[in-house]
């Protein structure tokens, strides 16, 4: 576009002003990128769940256990393809503050139901045959510097051993990854048998059941069947899709989504006011020049477009810088935050959204001055006539 040079020159005429406005936009999109990535990470558990996996928990609270006998009962229900179970171990390594998310599971059925986990076959076989063995997630292994073969003493802040103390000696038999990037790998799996036979609480209990339905369409029917089976028993159940379960958990943190939305919205609105004002002022200062351009023969429409291009360029300049830095910050933080938020990254979704908002910002801040330039009357602009 031939007018690009003119637009560029107009943008860069007052360097300090350009710097300040670009900086303000940069801040807005830095906040946007960082905060939206945070939100996305909180919801990631929700999105990543397989659509035919259901979770069965105690109706009152997932912290209450279910009888072991439920496993076979649920397997017998129509539409259920494979059932497995897990117990929350409450693990920590060396100090209670150093929490390790640990599940005590039935190895074979767990790996069947969670078919999106990938382990080298020899490591898997080793784990299956070693009751004191652990399967460690890739992220967890990385965070602690653990390798296959390491002997790790894992303690529990809930359970005690029959033989005394709360520490279980374990050996790392394998490291697992997800078959997709976003799958959580910051936890550890141990044998249910090892755990159950050595802990003091007694009773054959499981924390919750996870199962695959033979078809996602059967989810609702299967859920109802399971909950009906155990209604009015000592341990009533609540079955939901893994997605729903994870979402309900995040919801408990309180309206996090609303807080985040509120902050980002206010940031944007403030920037909008600041930048919009600056654009209006900048164009007003150029009234005389716009009149000259019109006199030379530049059409009003052409000038209108030039103003909008200018405001959009400004928005994209600051916006891309902001998103870029947000990306770098998030990448750095994701290592630190791996324990709480395993899925922290600035993904394509957030980026595309940001691009859209850059465009919107550019248009909104540019529209008023653009219309003013469009309607500018040469005669009145020159103050004569």
């Amino acid at each position, binding site marked *: 576009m031939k007018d690009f040079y003119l637009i560029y020159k107009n943008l860069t005429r007052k360097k300090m002003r350009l710097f300040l406005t670009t900086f303000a936009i940069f801040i807005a999109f830095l906040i946007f990128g960082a905060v939206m990535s945070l939100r996305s990470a909180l919801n990631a558990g929700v999105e990543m769940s397989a659509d035919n996996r259901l979770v069965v928990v105690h109706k*009152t*609270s997932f912290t*209450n256990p279910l009888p072991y006998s439920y496993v076979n009962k649920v397997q017998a229900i129509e539409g259920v393809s494979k059932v497995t179970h897990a117990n929350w171990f409450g693990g920590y390594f060396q100090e*209670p503050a150093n929490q390790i998310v640990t599940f005590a599971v039935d190895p074979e059925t767990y790996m069947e139901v969670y078919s999106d986990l990938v382990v080298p076959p020899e490591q898997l076989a080793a784990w299956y045959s070693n009751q004191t063995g652990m399967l460690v997630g890739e992220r967890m292994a990385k965070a602690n510097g653990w390798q296959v073969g390491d002997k790790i003493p894992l303690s529990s802040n809930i359970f005690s051993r029959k033989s005394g103390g*709360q520490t279980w000696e374990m050996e790392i038999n394998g490291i697992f990854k997800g078959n997709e990037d976003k799958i959580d790998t910051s936890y550890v799996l141990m044998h249910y048998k090892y755990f159950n036979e050595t802990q003091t609480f007694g009773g054959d209990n499981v924390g919750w059941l996870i199962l695959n339905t033979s078809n996602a369409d059967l989810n609702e029917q299967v859920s109802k069947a399971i909950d009906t089976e155990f209604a009015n028993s000592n341990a009533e159940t609540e079955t939901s899709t893994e997605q729903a379960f994870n979402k309900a958990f995040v919801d408990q943190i309180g309206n996090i989504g609303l807080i985040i939305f509120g902050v980002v919205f206010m940031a944007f609105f403030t920037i909008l006011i600041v930048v919009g004002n*600056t654009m209006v002022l900048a164009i007003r200062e150029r009234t005389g020049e716009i009149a000259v351009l019109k006199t030379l023969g530049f059409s009003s429409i052409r000038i209108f477009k030039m103003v909008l291009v200018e405001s959009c360029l400004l928005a994209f300049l600051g916006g891309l810088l902001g998103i870029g830095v947000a990306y770098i910050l998030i990448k750095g933080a994701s290592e630190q935050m791996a324990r709480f938020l395993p899925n922290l990254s600035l993904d394509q979704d957030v980026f595309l959204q940001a691009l859209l908002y850059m465009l919107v910002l550019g248009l909104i801040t540019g529209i008023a001055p653009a219309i003013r330039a469009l309607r500018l009357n040469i005669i009145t602009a020159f103050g004569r006539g």
Partner: protein
Amino acid sequence: MSSLLSQSAAVIKMNIQSLPRRLWMSLAMVFASAVVVAILLAFLAMAKGFDATMQSAGSDDVAMFMRIGSGAELNSSLSREQANLIENAPGIARDEQGPIVSPELYVIVDGVKKSSQSEANIPLRGLNERGVNMRKGFTLLEGRMFTPGTDELIVGAGILKEFEGFELGQEIRFGKYSWKVVGVFSTGGNVFESELWADAKVIQNLYNRGSSFQSLRARMESAESLPSIAEYLKGEARLTHEVQSESAYFSAQGKSLEYMAIFGWVISSVMALGALAGALNTMYTSVADRAMEIATLRAIGFSHFSAFIGTMAEAMTLAAIGSLVGSLAAFVFFDGLSASTLGGSFTQVVFSFQLTPELFINGISMALVIGFISGFFPAWRAARVPVIVAFQTAR
């Protein structure tokens, strides 16, 4: 000196009077400052409210016993025999009934949150009258205490605020069992008000706990008795428990929302940078707008300093107005706002946003910093406007 003062006063007056010419730019600066202050105050109020709820619950002279490594009452366990052993620890206060102890249970039940209409976990605590009396500030707001051995329970004021269906006289079902709400209690606005209380024995029965408990509270002779109690625990082989003061326990629990305050400072600082950019823009424009006037004054004989002061005063004034607006907005929208979030033990903790004078000072300070920086550099430029500008015709 007085000439300097009167010059400065005159310039300040002229600057303020010329503000309407730059109305929108000035309003933008006020708005940006207000938003920064409001956001900072909101997050700090959230953190302070949560913290206050947790802190005020703990007493320095109450000892809490839990199994080693538990971290929270939910995860702990204590048998009847162990409770008896602990009772005899040196340093535990006694009255005519014996050692002042309260072995307690802590189970999880469900409630429907009014705000989200979704379910969330609430603690149901099993205790007896001695336990109730150990909570400082305990009063019954409505109804009466539960009768031991029955399915009656009392509800904390916080639960009543945030959850549906816990009003006096209501019947509630948890799983197979139903309970009756016979009273509403308050403990001065702390975390205990996010709990349901019922008779310990009844809970033991219904939840198949036999004669076990989860934690034990004991009134100490004094806060200094703690070390001797800890010694006693170490020495007793049959006990796998540790002790801390109740206030230490809650302060550790409260750490979980510490991130909120950190998040608040980080976000508002970042936004403050953005607001600063906007403020600088406004002030540079102001100086350019008034270049002719400044130069004319200088030609008449006004000092550099008065030009500097004039601009600084304008910037600080705008920022200060912004901080007042922001503080007012935060106060109106957030002070006393009730909210609940996930505490330790995966149960909901009900708290209120708390805006204290100290927080307002934080907010105003931040705005004044913005005002100072955004005023300083343009003011410097104002001080250096060459007199010749007064003689140039506008082009």
